């Protein structure tokens, strides 16, 4: 008898049961003794049919079937056992004196794990049983590891879809499609609304798989949402994401990211691309590819600081335009010949999608046809952004106009419960600090959160940008008279910001409570030469329709939102009075 001490180390305990199906009583007894002598329990059956019943009742760990067993033939028994065992690996060994090639392959096809030919020595027989148990052990271990990994990936998937992506906005106009590959690789798609009504859209692709890539997703979504909500500039958001990812991710992991800001007031899209496939902008009517924004910065999280050339590409928008973001999983999908799906096919199917009003559906169908039934290597992620800005204007919270204008402006300082706040910025602080989020933060600290700050955000931004651009930097808004001019305007602004030396901006707020809200007086003074407000008003009134002009809308908008708007000191100081009431 074989001594198994040291030779075999099995996790399968001696409690393991072996079912033996053999119609020859002598052989059945002999096999049973051998198995018992090895310390295993046996279940015996004289015929195949009865053997199935015992298998079902006793759930043995290994089955031996004589090829000539009566009641049910060995091939059918084997097939039945494998079906009954389902996920659990129960080795089946067929015993026979002779089998031809065809019979052998039938056995294997039915799921038999081994065949023992008679006559055999008991030592060989026992070795085979041990070998089978060892395979069963490996199988069990693999099974538990796989289900552990599956649990991890399900958790990661849940984090992504429930926690991270739940807060997305404008879902009917920004179509998001995601399909995870067999191994979850971690694409993140986020959308959020700025206080100004602008929309930020982000597609991120973490290196790595499973839970490890989900680690970054939550802080990414938190930073993106919180900073968008507070009205931080997109570049600041990206800078902060980079800093956090650098802190959080190990050296070999990073975050490729593309981000689009749809600016409702400027009718342009700002596009950033750090390590993603080209961002594509189409005319959704004709299907023409209008713009392409290549990656212009390494992925985020690699170094502590962003590179200096992280300037967005600015795309003028028309109502028909569509912007497509996608991750590499889609262009790197392969067919049987090993070819990639590639960008040309992607663009073709996008055009088809415009015609049939279902871009993501068309692209996915095209990928499926291309790959046939091959499994995906990577996640497939698509974001189809409808650039008709009127969709997003309606999302911007409606400002409340029904105010009780019960407090006279001059009495502000005498009112109980009133407060004041001011801030001055000069020199290089003008380019380094964005005071608007700070002000909004102050307001929220003192007066509480609420949607009513959204239009105030617009007022503050317009007034501050005017003071900075036209006051301190003396930029002419004529530059913005054409869509191409925007880009020029932007680069000129960056240039002058670097050189600004003596300029300053002072911001002063005074707030007094009303019955259901408050009255906020905003005074912004800049170091510039001012401008002729009266003549601007006259020109503005002559422009028809004024809203089609690319510049000058800012002041008009502020006028609409505020109770009072006046320019003092030859136009270098502006004073605006804004009324707000609490959200219902």
């Amino acid at each position, binding site marked *: 008898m074989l001594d198994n001490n040291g030779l075999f180390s099995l996790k399968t305990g001696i409690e393991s049961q072996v079912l033996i199906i053999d119609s020859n009583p002598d052989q059945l007894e002999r096999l049973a003794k051998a198995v018992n002598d090895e310390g295993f329990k046996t279940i015996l059956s004289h015929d195949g049919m009865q053997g199935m019943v015992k298998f079902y009742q006793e759930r043995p760990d290994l089955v031996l079937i004589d090829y000539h067993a009566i009641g049910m033939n060995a091939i059918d028994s084997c097939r039945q056992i494998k079906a009954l065992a389902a996920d659990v690996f129960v080795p089946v060994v067929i015993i026979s004196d002779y089998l031809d090639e065809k019979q052998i392959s039938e056995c294997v096809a039915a799921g038999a794990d081994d065949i023992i030919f008679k006559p055999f020595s008991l030592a060989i027989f026992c070795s085979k049983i041990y070998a089978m148990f060892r395979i069963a052990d490996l199988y069990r271990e693999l099974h538990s590891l796989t289900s552990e990994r599956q649990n991890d990936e399900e958790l990661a998937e849940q984090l992504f879809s429930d926690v991270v992506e739940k807060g997305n906005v404008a879902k009917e106009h920004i179509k998001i499609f995601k399909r995870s590959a067999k191994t979850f690789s971690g694409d993140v798609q986020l959308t959020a609304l700025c206080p100004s009504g602008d929309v930020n859209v982000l597609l991120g692709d973490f290196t790595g798989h499973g839970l490890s890539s989900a680690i970054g997703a939550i802080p990414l979504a938190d930073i993106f949402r919180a900073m968008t909500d507070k009205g931080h500039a997109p570049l600041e958001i990206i800078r902060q994401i980079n800093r956090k990812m650098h802190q959080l991710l190990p050296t070999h992991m990073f975050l490729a990211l593309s981000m689009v800001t749809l600016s409702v007031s400027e009718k342009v899209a700002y596009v950033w691309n750090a390590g993603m*496939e080209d961002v594509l902008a189409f005319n959704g009517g004709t299907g023409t590819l209008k713009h392409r924004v290549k990656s212009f*910065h390494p992925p985020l999280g690699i170094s502590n600081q962003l590179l200096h050339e992280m300037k967005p590409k600015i795309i003028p928008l028309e109502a028909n335009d569509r912007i497509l973001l996608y991750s590499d999983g889609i262009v790197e999908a392969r067919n049987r010949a090993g070819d990639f799906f590639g960008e040309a096919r992607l663009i073709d199917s996008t055009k088809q999608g415009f015609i049939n009003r279902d871009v993501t559906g068309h692209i996915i169908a095209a990928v499926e046809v291309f790959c046939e039934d091959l499994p995906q290597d990577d996640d497939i992620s698509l974001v189809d952004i409808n650039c008709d800005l009127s969709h997003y204007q309606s999302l911007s919270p409606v400002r409340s106009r029904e105010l009780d204008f019960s407090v006279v402006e001059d009495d502000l300082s005498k009112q109980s419960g009133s407060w004041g706040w001011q801030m001055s910025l000069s020199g290089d602080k003008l380019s380094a600090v964005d005071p608007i989020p700070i002000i909004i933060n102050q307001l929220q600290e003192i007066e509480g959160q609420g949607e009513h700050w959204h239009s105030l955000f617009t007022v503050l931004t317009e007034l501050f940008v005017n003071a900075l651009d036209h006051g301190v930097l003396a930029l002419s808004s004529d530059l913005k008279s054409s869509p191409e001019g925007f880009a020029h305007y932007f680069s000129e602004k960056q240039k002058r910001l670097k050189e600004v030396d003596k300029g300053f901006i002072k911001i002063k707020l005074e707030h007094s409570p009303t019955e259901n809200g408050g009255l906020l007086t905003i005074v912004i003074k800049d170091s510039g030469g001012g401008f002729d407000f009266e003549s601007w008003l006259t020109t503005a009134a002559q422009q028809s329709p004024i809203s089609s002009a690319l510049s000058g809308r800012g002041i008009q908008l502020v006028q609409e939102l505020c109770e009072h708007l006046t320019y003092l000191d030859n136009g270098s100081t502006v004073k605006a009075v804004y009324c707000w009431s609490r959200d219902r």
Partner: protein
Amino acid sequence: MSIVSRVASNNKDIVITISERFDFSQYKIFREAYCDCNGSGTDFYVDLSKANYMDSSALGMLLLLKEHADKLAGKVIIERPNDAINKVLEIAQFHHLMTIVR
């Protein structure tokens, strides 16, 4: 062997040659190719002329190599990537981080 490393003719620098696929499956062997090279000022040449595919985890591996080289005050030089691999490097804008010689 898909990754071979040797000491360069100047007896100081290391040349790592990668064949066929450069992806996550090479993680261990790629690391072993450089982790014992600790000479101050060692430059690491990664010869990709025989590689035909590279994925984003390979980019991560290059960053690990760069971290290692930075500690030694050495450089990483990527040599002769094919078009497909160069596209991956270009999308990731890796020329900002290390030298790439076509």
